[in-house]
């Protein structure tokens, strides 16, 4: 539309030749709704609802996965996730302290570690861990699949958490360390008792998000080759759906993930909002 007609349209004194902006907006909205309705009608008319229901919402098949979906698969997913998180937390904290060390080689080692493990796909890490026995025949990680899963998830999340912790430690006001040191606390004691507890509070939201990421990434444990007792959600859903030649279990698995990830995401946002308000 030309600038001239637009000007005319917005000028109420002139007799209108084009449409007013408000009218145009209304027409555009009507069109959008119309498109939506057409798509819905077409979907309803064309889709084979019976087939969809039997495939994706087949309660018989879903029922066969119970209670193992929760007692085995979810349980293992939670174990893999938490063990990876704990390892990542501890290693990440150490890496963050190294990153902030006054000893340069510590800083370098930490920086290199962080760059490497943030730059690699988690899948590749699991492939590497799975191939360790090829490189060192007879070699086995302590804890078997559980140990390998914790290692894979831990070494990668450590790199991310290290960056979170570093930012958190740097966000604690300098006066806190000075106050602690002025009371005679050695540097390490001041870090452990005064700085790190405050830093952890600050990084609680990103750590919660990190937990969500780990929960999803724990699905990669299937690369390691797991027994029926070690199966986690994704592989469980996949196995069940092959067994019954029906995709419902995969959908059920997805819902189970969401059961945890959505509340966790909510918690993270709440924590974030509370910190924002506290400033």
């Amino acid at each position, binding site marked *: 539309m030309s600038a001239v007609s637009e000007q005319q349209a917005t000028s109420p004194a002139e007799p209108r030749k084009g449409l007013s902006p408000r009218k145009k907006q209304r027409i555009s909205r009507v069109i959008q709704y119309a498109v939506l309705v057409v798509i819905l009608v077409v979907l309803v008319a064309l889709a084979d609802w019976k087939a969809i229901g039997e495939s994706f919402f087949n309660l018989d098949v879903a029922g066969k996965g119970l209670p193992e979906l929760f007692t085995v698969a979810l349980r293992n997913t939670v174990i893999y996730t938490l063990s990876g998180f704990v390892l990542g937390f501890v290693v990440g904290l150490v890496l963050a302290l190294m990153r902030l060390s006054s000893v340069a080689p510590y800083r370098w080692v930490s920086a290199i570690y962080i760059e490497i493990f943030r730059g690699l796909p988690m899948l590749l890490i699991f492939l590497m861990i799975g191939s360790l026995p090829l490189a060192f025949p007879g070699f086995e990680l302590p804890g078997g699949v559980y140990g390998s899963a914790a290692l894979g998830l831990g070494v990668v999340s450590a790199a991310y958490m290290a960056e979170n912790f570093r930012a958190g430690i740097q966000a604690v*006001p300098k*006066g*806190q360390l*000075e*106050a*602690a*040191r*002025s*009371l*005679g*606390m*050695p540097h390490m*004691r001041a870090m452990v*008792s*005064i700085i790190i*507890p*405050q830093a952890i*509070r600050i990084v609680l939201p990103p750590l919660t998000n990190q937990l969500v990421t780990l929960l999803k990434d724990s699905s990669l444990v299937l690369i390691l080759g797991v027994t029926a007792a070690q199966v986690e959600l994704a592989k469980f859903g996949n196995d069940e759906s092959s067994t019954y030649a029906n995709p419902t279990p995969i959908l059920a698995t997805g819902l189970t993930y969401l059961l945890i990830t959505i509340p966790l995401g909510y918690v993270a946002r709440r924590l974030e909002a509370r910190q924002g308000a506290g400033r």
Partner: protein
Amino acid sequence: MSTVEIKNLHKSFGSLEVLRGIDFTVESGQVVCVIGPSGSGKSTLLRCVNLLEQPTSGTVVVDGVDLTDPDVDIDAARRHIGMVFQQFNLFPHLTVRRNVTIAQERVLKRSKGECDRVARENLEKVGLIEKIDAYPPQLSGGQQQRVAIARALAMNPSLMLFDEPTSALDPELVGDVLAVMRKLAEDGMTMLVVTHEMGFAREVADRVVFMDGGVIVEDGPPEQVIADPQHERTREFLRRVLHPGV
């Protein structure tokens, strides 16, 4: 005996020389107030006394221990030097009680019961025993500063350093903090106080030190330095502080 003995103290930040040869002593039981314009190096001097800043050269002797000696255990030395900051620097994630007990417990290795007793005694002294289970952000600035004083006192310091302890406070809260400091002085505590509170300096200080440009310009009893300054720079500074806007 002198508690603090500073000789030819220099401190530079990069090429900026902030302290340019400071000599002075604080006798045991004395209260010395340090005054001077912004940027004259008052905080830096104070922070050199407990080695929060590493002096570039010169010696700082506290209680007979030369803190600039590289072999000295600085953590051990700091236990006996209390410090109160302009911004209070209470530990916000810990209760008032924990703020006052944590260093006693971790540094002095006192028993839990002993820590608690000392905490109560010192909170009593600053008039805040009823806030013992509160968290610092729940307290007013004046209350936080008094807790900070109690926290320092709980370590049984032989010297207390104050860096503009009332500068961050609303005017109506200044009095409570100064009253605590006055009481402390009466009880014989050795104190080195950076302050703009001329009334406090005049009434409480045994000596007033005027600093400008990284050197001590004038050092003497308050009735001399404040009431009858010998140097033009001191007079000029006092004119501005005592009659702002004139």
